[in-house]
């Protein structure tokens, strides 16, 4: 990983991948390339947490060095931003732990220093999380079973952009859906500092019966190389100054 940039894939799916490579293997590969994979598993309202189709959600995230969360559509918004932020902290912490190992010896990590030192370390971690550059590729499962969840996903992503735009560091986003019409993934939005640009192109319809999660992840991984032209154009929020009294 190039210093100061965090690369994440945010996979939003309802599980049941059924085509191509094992997504857990691809996730491990992505992690080796410095890309963290966070996964949000959307449950049906009558699903239990143990539902078999969703088992892969935790496995993919674990293998991809990220965070996973199962969620009902109603609480998707808060979960999306929480998972993204926790994923960042976890990634940074991973680096800090590596540094600590180099200083303190093998198997040493934040847990093995006393609470006072830990506090100082976490201050640095938080600082980096707030100021680093963040690249997020949102990968949305649009297989048939996701059909009635897509509008909720869209709302949650708009909410995510509100959260991330409040950061001090720069953000760039891109968004892909899978399966695509002719290929494994299809772009919804190319790299841009404004997630809101997806408004025009956000898919309204789900595209088919197959769920090629593994191949989609692999394709998504390659998109990070294509992001060098984007310069952030962060807008500073303007507040209206209307007087009311």
């Amino acid at each position, binding site marked *: 990983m190039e210093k100061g940039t965090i690369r994440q894939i945010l996979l939003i799916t309802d599980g049941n991948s059924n085509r191509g490579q094992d997504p857990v293997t691809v996730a491990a590969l992505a992690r080796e390339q410095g890309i963290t994979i966070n996964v949000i598993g959307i449950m049906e309202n009558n699903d239990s*947490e*143990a539902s078999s189709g969703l*088992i892969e959600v*935790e*496995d993919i995230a674990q293998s991809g060095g990220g965070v996973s969360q199962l969620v009902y559509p109603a609480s998707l*918004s*808060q979960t999306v931003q929480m998972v993204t932020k926790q994923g960042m*902290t976890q990634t940074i*912490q991973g680096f800090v732990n590596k540094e600590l190992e180099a200083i303190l010896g093998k198997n040493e990590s*934040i*847990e093995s220093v*006393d*609470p*006072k030192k*830990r*506090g100082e*370390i*976490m*201050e640095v*971690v*938080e600082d980096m999380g*707030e100021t680093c550059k963040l690249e997020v590729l949102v990968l949305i499962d649009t297989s048939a079973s996701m059909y009635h969840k897509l509008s909720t996903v869209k709302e949650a992503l708009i*909410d995510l952009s*509100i*959260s*991330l*735009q*409040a*950061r*001090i560091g720069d953000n760039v986003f891109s968004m892909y859906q899978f399966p695509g019409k002719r290929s494994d993934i299809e772009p919804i939005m190319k790299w841009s500092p404004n997630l809101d640009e997806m408004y025009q192109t956000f898919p309204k319809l789900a595209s088919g019966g197959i769920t090629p999660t593994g191949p989609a992840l692999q394709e998504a991984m390659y998109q990070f190389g294509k992001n060098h032209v984007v310069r952030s154009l962060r807008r500073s*929020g303007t*507040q*209206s*100054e*209307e*007087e*009311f*009294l």
Partner: protein
Amino acid sequence: MARKVKKSSYNTIQSGTHIRGKWHDHRYIVKKRLGEGAIGSVYLCSMNGRNVALKISEKNTSITIEVNVLKALQKVQGNKLGPSLYDVDDWVAQDGKTYSYYVMEYIQGMGMHSFIRRYGNQWVGPFLLQLLNDLEALHQAGWVFGDLKLDNVLIDIKPPRVRLVDVGGTTQVGRSIKEYTEFYDRGYWELGSRKAEPSYDLFAVVMIFIHVFYPNRFEKRGDSFALLNRKIAAIPSLKPYRACFYKALKGVYQKSADMREDIIYIMANHPSSSRSIQQKLPFWRRTTPLECISIGMITLSAYGVAWLFT
């Protein structure tokens, strides 16, 4: 790949359990569970016969972040912002897992909603002033409370005083809000950003008092600003503050103190919002003359400001 479906055990610590710190060797006996937050559980414990609150989680980083905030707040002189911090440590439980915890002052308060229902709507004004006072001190110290909501405001009963608890969302000014609750979040209502600035908290202050009178809350529908204003106008106890609440919702106030000034002015000009305090004498008024004096001072300063304005 077997999937573990189990509740984390920090959520279910039995009363009577001894928690012994790995680093500092202090011992705590668990009495009962007080509640559960986004990152951990809080237990009432005793330490050498004294009641303390202990927050424990498997996420040691989240615990550490909260401890950092509490430490920073202890350094702010004068106001008691958040509970006092006593100890930070790890506990190796019987299952062999290590949990992180911190120990703080046990605030035996009453929820603001129950308090106002029991002792009357005339408490809206004083609590508004107290809350804004604490927020002003917090903001001046460079922090924004963030996850300001009814659940995180307790009323210390003798004398009635607002106390802010749970600093999980408390964020340095200028950063992005760490943790929030949708109903209280101006981002959710599309009325502002999630940047940590004083106006973020002031928005939530208004939502707290809306929530007191709409215990079941309500959802976003159409024009948020119009909706919230309708809800405020429909409640007689909030109506006097309407103009001030408009400004807070719009993000006009840059400082808590500015909003506080407006509230004092309103209280002075709408005697109905403060006068009835004298009519109803709850138990503590008979026991603590100090409180009478402090309420008297609020009223006095209110009239003082009113006089200045006329």
